[in-house]
């Protein structure tokens, strides 16, 4: 490891496009070998995107990431290459994650290790100036990884309780006769349970992926980017409270039909589109503050 400290010494500064012109076979070799090592892991993840509607936004994430990189290609071409030894250690960390995940069949760790290895290698080969442009799109890839069930359930429980509590409070203020028992709402003619899907968590990951995409694409300053990304949480919760209240009120008139089947699915769509509209509105407002 004697070169670690002297890594950029004695090398003339180089723009990324010139570096790539010389070293593209290495990059190609790395991508090929990553493809080989990760093929089963990525294939399994794509199957989750396809089978589980909580994670269907996964298909979108790599495309957005590539698009982001494409929009920055002019700046990338002229970025200075300043290799950084830290990158190697980040890659090592990624490999440790990969192997630990592999021997214990821990999917999240295995999947996340791909992003960590990519991040580490870009830093090790090309340095911080390139990373300033690629870091966002690379870290964005983390959002394509399905949230582990342990984390999902740990978040869903309190969120469900909160959504039920606020919804019942709003309905009472509207004069609706309703009692709350845990996550169950008791109406005179019907009993409804606020399940995980209605807690807002289901749409939260998709909304978060979209919010961060918006932020990276359209917001210029780091502050407004963070604000837009963080707004995904209240937007997801508020729209789902709206959904629970609407379902509760409507089922007073139309019975169980309002809470089940087509109507429920339809309401889910309307709520998600509303959330998107809110996100877009937030983006328009925040843009005014972007310098």
């Amino acid at each position: 490891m004697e070169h670690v400290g002297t890594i950029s010494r004695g090398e003339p500064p180089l723009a990324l496009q010139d570096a790539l012109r010389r070293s593209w076979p290495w990059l190609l070799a790395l991508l090929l070998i990553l493809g080989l090592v990760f093929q089963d892991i990525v294939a399994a993840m794509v199957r989750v995107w396809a089978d589980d509607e909580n994670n269907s936004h996964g298909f979108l994430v790599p495309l957005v990431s590539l698009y982001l990189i494409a929009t920055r290609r002019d700046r990338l071409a002229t970025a200075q290459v300043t290799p950084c030894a830290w990158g190697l250690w980040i890659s090592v960390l990624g490999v440790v994650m990969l192997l630990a995940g592999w021997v214990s069949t821990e999917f999240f760790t295995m999947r996340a290790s791909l992003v960590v290895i990519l991040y580490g290698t870009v830093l090790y080969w090309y340095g911080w100036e390139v990373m300033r442009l690629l870091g966002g799109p690379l870290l964005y890839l983390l959002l394509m990884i399905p949230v582990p069930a342990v984390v999902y359930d740990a978040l869903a429980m309190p969120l469900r309780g909160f959504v039920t509590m606020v919804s019942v409070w709003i309905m009472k203020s509207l004069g609706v006769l309703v009692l709350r028992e845990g996550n169950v709402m008791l109406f005179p003619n019907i009993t409804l349970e606020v399940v995980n899907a209605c807690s807002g968590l289901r749409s939260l990951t998709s909304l978060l992926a979209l919010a961060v995409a918006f932020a990276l694409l359209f917001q210029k300053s780091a502050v407004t980017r963070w604000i837009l990304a963080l707004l995904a949480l209240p937007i997801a919760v508020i729209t789902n409270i709206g959904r629970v209240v609407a379902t509760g009120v409507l089922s007073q008139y139309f019975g169980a039909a309002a809470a089940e089947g087509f109507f429920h699915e339809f309401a889910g769509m309307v709520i998600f589109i509303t959330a998107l509209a809110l996100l877009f509105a937030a983006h328009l407002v925040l843009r005014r503050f972007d310098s």
Partner: protein
Amino acid sequence: MRIHRYVLSILLVGAAGLFMGLHTTVPTYLPVPLEDFPASLAQWRLAREETFSPELLKVLRPTDYLYRVYTTNNGDAVHLYIGYHDGTRNAGQIHSPKNCLPGGGWYEVSSRKTSLPLPDGSSIPLVEAVYKHGETTEVMLYWFEAGGVEVTNEYAFKLKEVENSIFRGRRDAAFVRIGVTTRGDSLDAAFQQARRFLGDAWQSLRWHLPS
């Protein structure tokens, strides 16, 4: 540009891939299929056997499983679930009730670690938990087995799995749960019942699961 940087990165990923390719875990087979688990254990008789829906099986992906209700003549009833995963890629993961049941609307009322002494001088470490779903209360005794070793903690289980995979080349895991449905006012009696069943079933459990 120095070449060592490229070589080092590629070697690193390549070495990981090589390890993954060469590191095989062989499936551990059950001595006999779980359906051959005794239908009568002391005073307990098999009353009902349930099969899981294809959707549930798709999530759990057990290599073999058993879900039975055993009853006695005086009306006691216990549920016995055994999920076995042979450690190959096709087998799913153990789902801890801690993470799994809340998704189905069950919530944990209490849970504590303990162990049940057995007549042969050994003991089974287990979790005694109470779960509630609406009006239904269920007391349960459960534990995990990683490569035949009983553990009660999800993280210890994961570590044991890593250790077994690296040093013993096996990754088999089992989950055993004994449940008793109760009205909620007689938790102690329900736990007694579950422990009594385990006392009658432990020899068969040891024999039917890999050691």
